[in-house]
Structure formats: C-alpha cells, structure tokens
C-alpha cells in the first residue's frame, strides 16, 4: 500500500510542483540574464533583486480578463493550452533525477517510474504536444496565429526527425531504451555519451533549441512578422499556460540531454579516481547542476544570436542535420558490430 500508492503519489506531487516552480523562476532567470547581457538590471522592484517577480506575474495573469474571440472555435480554443501543457508535464514520469536513496529506512528511487520503453515514451509524449500549437492557431480564427502555428508545427515535425535519429544512435550505444539503464550504461563504460557521440550531442542540442521554439529558431514567435505568434489571441491564464509549456519543454530537453549525454546523476569524469572526493555530494545535485547549465546556455544563445530566416531553418534541418544524423547512426551501427565480433 505504502510502496505502491503513497510513495509514487508523493513523488508525482513533488515533481510536478518543483517543475512548476522551476518554470516560473526560469522566466525570471531569462529576464535577468538577458538584462545583464544588454547592460540593464532587469526586474528589481518586487522583492530584493526582483525574486518575487514570478509571483507578481502569476497574480497579474490570473486576475486578467480572459477573452475568447467571437469567431473562435470555442471548444478547441479552450482545449489547446491544456493540450500544450499536459504532455510537457507527464514526460517527467520517466526522467531519472538520481539512483536509489534510503530515506527513513526505506529504499526510494529518485524517479517516478522506470519503464522498458522510457526514451520512446518521452519521444511519443512530446510529439503529442504539437497539437497544442496547431490547434491554438487554428481555433483563434485569425491570420497571424494560423500562419505562426503552421510554421511552428512544420518546424517541430522537421526537427523531430533529426532529434529522434540521434536518440537511436544513443540507444545503440547504451543497448537499452530505459532512461535509468542509459545512465547505468554510462557508469559501466566510465564515460559520458557526449564523448562517444559528440555529433549526436550537437544535433540533439540544435534540434532541442528548434523543438522548443527557442532563439535562434523562434520563428513562430517572430514579433515583427507575426505579431507574437500562435498565442496572439490568448490572454490571461490561458496565455500563461502556453508560456509555462514552453519553459517546461525547455526543462524536459535539458533533462533528457543530461540523462543521455552528460551522465545523468553521475559526477563529472566518473572514471577519474582522483575526483573521488566529490562522491559525498548527493547524486541529484549533479543532475540539477547539469540541467541548469543547459538552461543557462539556452538563455545565453537567445541573448547572443540573431534569428534564422525560415528557409535557412528548413535547409539546416533537412539538408544538414538529418543527413548528418543518418550518417552518425550508420557509423555507430557499423562500429558496434565490428566491436562485437
């Protein structure tokens, strides 16, 4: 009873709440980092150094008037933000934050569940998230959101191919689809997969930027052309849901990248014994630090790079990343067969 019901429920509650808090503070971090990059201060008024700004934002969004356009498709308009948000949250079910720990004399795993098809679960759930974007654009019954949502979904579908192909080469190296087993494989090989699969890592990172609609691939939200993107007609909490979904997806991409390429909860250089003094640090801190570095780089890139043009984006996806990912997969397969014989 306790092991099968209460502990998993507690874990779900903790992970969901931690994610939502992390998402709201990601927004603050982004505003702060971009402000620093542009020699500004960023939010400073609410609380010391603006640390209460996310709460003020949330209150403002919740009490704002919620408008549904008259000609909008009412049901789909209401459902779209929910469809965008839910997949971004249920992915966390398989992300391993750490190995087993004992707490109050009980062995507790630091992941909600470890399924045999973990990585495929992540890919399939995130592929459903694209409906939120398409339907938001369609249901608004307005030109710019429709164009933005078509752009966004074309971009998502194109980059999904390249990203999934890089995942296949990681699966080949690890020999398993389970997220926990992939980390264990890196422990067993004494090396992070970023060093075995550097090309896959690079493609995954670029694809991850594109799939979360982040700069320099944030064409669906190009203000100058599209007045703000697929959520132009949304206001109040529904708009906030799209925003939260985008940041939750960023956290998902960084967690998956950490798990697959940076050794998940393992300490840096797991094969160097001289770094053994790092072992007492709890393993989940490593996971959080690595994911945070990823998120910081996401923001850093947004503050640094200008936006791609749409045709450049498509050319990069189809003519560069996908062929490279396929070549990487073929080479990985050949090397694996050669090593096995």
């Amino acid at each position, binding site marked *: 009873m306790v092991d099968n019901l209460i502990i998993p429920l507690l874990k779900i509650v903790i992970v969901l709440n931690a994610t939502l808090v992390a998402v709201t503070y990601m927004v603050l971090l982004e505003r702060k980092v971009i402000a620093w990059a542009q020699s500004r201060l960023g939010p400073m008024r609410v609380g010391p150094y603006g640390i209460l700004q996310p709460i003020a934002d949330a209150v403002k969004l919740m009490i704002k008037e919620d408008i549904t356009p008259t000609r909008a498709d009412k*049901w789909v308009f209401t459902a779209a933000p929910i469809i965008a948000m839910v997949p971004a949250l249920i992915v966390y079910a398989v992300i391993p934050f750490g190995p087993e720990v004992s707490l109050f004399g009980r062995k507790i795993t630091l992941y909600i569940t470890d*399924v045999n*098809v973990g990585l495929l679960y992540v890919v399939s759930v995130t*592929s459903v998230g694209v409906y939120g974007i*398409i339907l938001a654009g369609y249901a608004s019954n307005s030109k710019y959101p429709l164009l933005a949502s*078509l752009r966004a979904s074309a971009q998502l579908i194109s980059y999904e191919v390249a990203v999934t192909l890089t995942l296949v080469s990681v699966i080949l190296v690890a020999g398993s689809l389970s997220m926990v087993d992939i980390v264990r494989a890196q422990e067993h090989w004494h090396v992070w997969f970023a060093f075995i699969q550097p090309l896959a890592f690079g493609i995954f990172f670029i694809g991850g930027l594109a799939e979360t609609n982040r700069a320099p691939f944030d064409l669906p939200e190009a203000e100058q052309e599209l007045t703000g993107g697929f959520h132009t007609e949304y206001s109040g909490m529904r708009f906030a849901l799209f925003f939260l979904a985008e940041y939750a997806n960023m956290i998902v991409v960084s967690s998956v990248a950490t798990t697959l390429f940076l050794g998940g909860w393992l300490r840096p250089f797991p094969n160097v014994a001289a770094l053994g003094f790092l072992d007492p640090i709890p393993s989940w801190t490593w996971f959080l630090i690595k994911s945070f570095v990823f998120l910081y780089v996401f923001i850093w890139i947004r503050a640094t790079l200008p936006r791609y043009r749409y045709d450049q984006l498509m050319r990069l996806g189809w003519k560069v990343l996908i062929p490279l990912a396929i070549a990487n997969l073929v080479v990985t397969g050949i090397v694996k067969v050669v090593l096995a014989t």
Partner: protein
Amino acid sequence: MGQAIAFYTLAAFILGFAVLVVSTKDTVHSVLFLVLDFLFVAALYVLLAAPFLAVIQVLVYAGGIVVLYLFVVMLVNLKRAPEAHHDPHRRTKLGFWLAAAVLVELGAIAAYGPAASAPAVTQTAAMPVSGNTEQVGWLLYTSYLIPFEIASMLLLVAMIGAIVLAKREL
C-alpha cells in the same frame, strides 16, 4: 475483474469516439476525436502488457500521421455547409449489409477461431531475451522477418513515389 472493468471502459470510449469521428460535421473536430481514439487504443495496449506497441501507437498515429491529416484539413478549409447529396446510383443498403457481413465474420472468428481454443503463448518461452521491446524486436527479425521486410519495402516505394510526384524534374 479490475482488468475486465478497465477493458470495457476503454472499449466503450474507443467505440464512442469512433462514432463521433464519423458523425461530427466539423472536419477538424472529427480529426481530434480520431486522436483521442488512438490514445485510448494505446491505453488498451498498455492494458494488454504491450508498452512498446502503445508508445509506437502514440508516436506514429497520434503524434505523426494525424498531424498531417490536420495540416491537410486546415489548409483546404472544408468549412462550407455540407451539400445535400443526391446520387441516383447510391446504394443506401449496401453499406449496411457489408457491415453486417463483417460483424458475422468477426463473431464466427471469436466463436470458432484459434483464439477460442488455445491462446498462443507457447512461442514466448523460447525467446532468449526478456523485456517487451526486445521480444518485439526478436520476433520481427526471426519469425516475421519477411513480412517486416515487405512492409519496409512498401514504405520505401511510397517514399520514392512521393518524391517523384512532388518533384517534376529530377
């Protein structure tokens, strides 16, 4: 008992959404009901302890193919009022009789087919691998190799055909 309740609940949802898919006037809503239908079929696979099939169902059908349906439906804009259709050659009863024939056939299979006599679980014992994904992979590359290769050949042909159609001058 619990499994039976779960099965009949899922089956009711699947049938209900299937009816909604064909009865809804708005094409986009109809496509959305199709997505829900696919998701519930995936849940049915989970109930049958086939998680690999379930995630592939979501990935390929709900997340891939139906997105393309939605693209097509949104781009061609079918929002006109449905016209009354008077085709003199239309056979209204034919569909009904065909559906009845399929129903009788399915009933006969359920009553007298191989599933009624013995469940085919003998093969799984001979497999050298454990885990759902590994077992599916093993079966695909041993017992079902030829169907698998034929299916991939068909997909390749379809892909080449699409490229040839889309690109007039190569």
